[in-house]
């Protein structure tokens, strides 16, 4: 059983996150909130749901864009569930958007009762590698032995936290809550050192001290971007899971981003773009993932922060053809792959049958939706 909030770590992390986020200017808000010089926007909405009243970008572009603000995040201690390590963390309640298949109109979710946006990052307890696919997480919240909530946090992506599981969870009364989390086996193909691992579901329990004042505190710590930047193409600096992008800085988990395109093995077949997503496409000859044959490696990710885009349905049409299989490899990480003989001069399309079925935080809800095929030529 793990216990409670690590205040020191939380403070350190939130401070660092704010530094990482760059200058949070409030002067630009004047135009938005009148000229009375008030520098703190009113973010408690009428329905008493903290966080839900923050100003948002009107008519956001059809691209990854900078939101108006970033909310502080509090980390709890990591917990172990079987082979998985989970990092529970939380922030103010957020709007987010749920995907409905290949429909390009995601469903907006607004917070509707007091509580927190509760999140879990999951990584491999052995190698520390991120596991960015739906793991059917289950979360049961109890207080004084009474079950108060039970849900499956949604697989989602955010600019600062990358791929995680999260939801707006009602916490109404201050007190000690017990949270039970269950994780399913990995459903995606597992290769390399991951082959044969993550076959069992696992459950763990931790306690969480909730103080109603935390909501107001978190809201008070919201940092606004310079208003001129609201809605600009770009993304907030990643906060990661305590480790930031750089695993060498003493953080506890993996960063949120995938490796840069040229750090993968094999031959580059280019980095292609479809509705904002960047597809790193490479050819690996003599690959163990293809029975020592040729392997087509495709790694779609967000621009800027290189957040993986899981649970897509991708196929290849053209001089080669077939379905790309979502794969978690111990060395190559998350990607989609296909065994295929590639010859110079081959041309093929990577067809997106469905865009990433992950819920979207603000700034990602207008991209990776209506994704045209990308055309790849082999030199």
């Amino acid at each position, binding site marked *: 059983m793990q216990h409670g909030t690590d205040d020191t770590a939380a403070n350190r992390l939130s401070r660092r996150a704010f530094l990482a986020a760059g200058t949070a200017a409030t002067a630009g808000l004047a135009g938005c909130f009148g000229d009375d010089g008030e520098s703190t926007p009113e973010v408690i909405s009428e329905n008493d749901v903290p966080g839900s009243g923050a100003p948002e970008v009107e008519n956001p572009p059809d691209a990854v864009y900078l939101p108006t603000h970033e909310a502080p995040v509090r980390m709890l201690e990591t917990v172990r569930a079987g082979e998985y390590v989970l990092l529970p963390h939380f922030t103010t309640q957020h709007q987010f958007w*749920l*995907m*409905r*298949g*290949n429909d390009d109109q995601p*469903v907006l*979710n607004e917070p*509707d009762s007091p509580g927190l946006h509760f999140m879990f990052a999951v990584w491999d307890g052995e190698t520390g590698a991120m596991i960015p*696919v*739906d*793991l*059917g997480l*289950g979360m*049961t919240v109890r207080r004084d032995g*009474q*079950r*108060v*909530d*039970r*849900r*499956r946090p*949604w*697989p989602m992506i955010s600019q600062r936290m990358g791929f995680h599981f999260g*939801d707006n969870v*009602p916490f109404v009364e201050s007190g000690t809550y017990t949270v039970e989390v*269950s994780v*399913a*086996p990995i*459903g*995606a*193909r597992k290769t390399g050192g991951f082959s044969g691992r993550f*076959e069992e*579901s696992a*459950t763990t329990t931790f306690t969480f001290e909730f103080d109603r004042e935390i909501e107001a505190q978190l809201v008070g710590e919201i940092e606004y971007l310079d208003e001129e930047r609201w809605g600009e193409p770009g993304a907030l600096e990643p906060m990661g899971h305590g480790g930031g992008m750089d695993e060498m800085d003493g953080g506890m988990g993996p960063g949120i981003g995938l490796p840069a395109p040229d750090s993968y093995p094999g031959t580059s077949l280019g980095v292609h773009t479809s509705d904002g997503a960047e597809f790193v496409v490479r050819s690996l000859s003599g690959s163990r993932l293809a029975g020592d044959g040729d392997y087509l490696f495709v790694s779609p990710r967000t621009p800027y922060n290189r957040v993986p885009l899981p*649970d*897509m*349905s*991708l196929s290849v049409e053209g001089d080669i053809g077939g*379905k790309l*299989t*979502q794969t978690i490899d111990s060395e190559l990480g998350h990607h989609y792959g296909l065994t295929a003989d590639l010859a110079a001069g081959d041309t093929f399309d990577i067809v997106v*049958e*469905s*865009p990433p*079925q*992950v819920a979207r935080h603000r700034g990602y809800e207008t991209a990776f939706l209506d994704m045209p095929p990308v055309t790849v030529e082999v030199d």
Partner: protein
Amino acid sequence: MELPDPDTVPRREYLRGLVAVGGAAALAACLDSVDEGGVPTGDPDERPPSQHAWNDVLDTDEYGNIRSPEHRVLLALDLEGEPDQSDREQVEAAFRSLERAYAHDPEGLLFNVGYAPSYFETVGVEPPIPHPKPITNSENPALDGFDTLVHLASDNPEVVLEAEEALLGEVSEPNGVEMSATLAGVFERGQPRRTGFVGAGLPAQHTEMDAVPESIPEAAPFFMGFKSGFANSQAPERRVTIQDGPYAGGTTTQIESLDLQLRSWFEQDDHFLRVAQLFSPAHAERGMVPGVGDELGNSTDIEQFVDRTAADASEGVVGHAQKAARARDEDGTPPLLRRDFNTVDGDFPGIHFLSHQRTIEDFVRVREAMAGEDLDSGVGQSHNNGILQYIFTNRRGNFLVPPRTKRSLPGL
């Protein structure tokens, strides 16, 4: 558990609350609230040979869908010792007494008796059904460990309460008819006691619970907001009846007890996604289910969309009914006869998914099809994958329901 307060809850909900509490006090309160003499008595010789043959006496709606009895109790029983022939006569006398006390119809009492693998092991017989076990790779259910299950069903709440008490020897004259014997001494109450209800409007009466949102449709008979048990999605009774061997004429019962996350279902998803995930994406795209499902008549037409299951998954959403229908017989006959019902046991909305099928393997096949672990792209383990995002499997149990002539301590 405390009795509900008749002054603060609607009458129908009050009566349902009494069934959930159970016991002598709840029964007394229930009998105080209903008209005396309203429940018909019965004749044991008029009961059909199959304990699960209820359809002939159940009402149908205007579309020909069979209407489930409104109130349910699942009574768990444990053997008190190793039973003998005289115990068998006692048990049979108890069941026949119930059949005299209540008519074989939903105004009276519909019931059947099933036996768990542990029962057969206790009496020294190879169990004719497997022990329950987890079926999907994401669940970790408790497994029913008691010996015998009595499924009690009636449209009258006092009937299921009174029949339960009468079997255990707590009431001597249910519906004014004397019990010539009871189960006491042979069986004692086991755990868990499960209760529930089905009926248009009943789920919406639970919005005082935090986990039941106000947005649940008023007319919905089930918590998920839609009708279920459409005539063409139900196995005929003969499809679930055992054809050969010592239990020919019987069936099997499996129970999967589930929690439901209704706030996400009703308030995070929209109607389109609910229809797409419960039926199929085509049902949503074509607007086939604008309301709670009355528009569908007696058929979900799901068979038209079964072949699209993998393709729909590739496009990001796949339907629950669509996935499950992959396990139908070649001629399209569904293998399960659903007699499931809503529950708020444990003060949380859920379903006791009780079904009859010829073999437990039939159920496992359907449940695996529903889990869709073979659908490896486009949808997540739970996300947009039927209703898996919203259900939590708590318990499983398997039972053999012998034909009526062998319902009392079979295998002795």
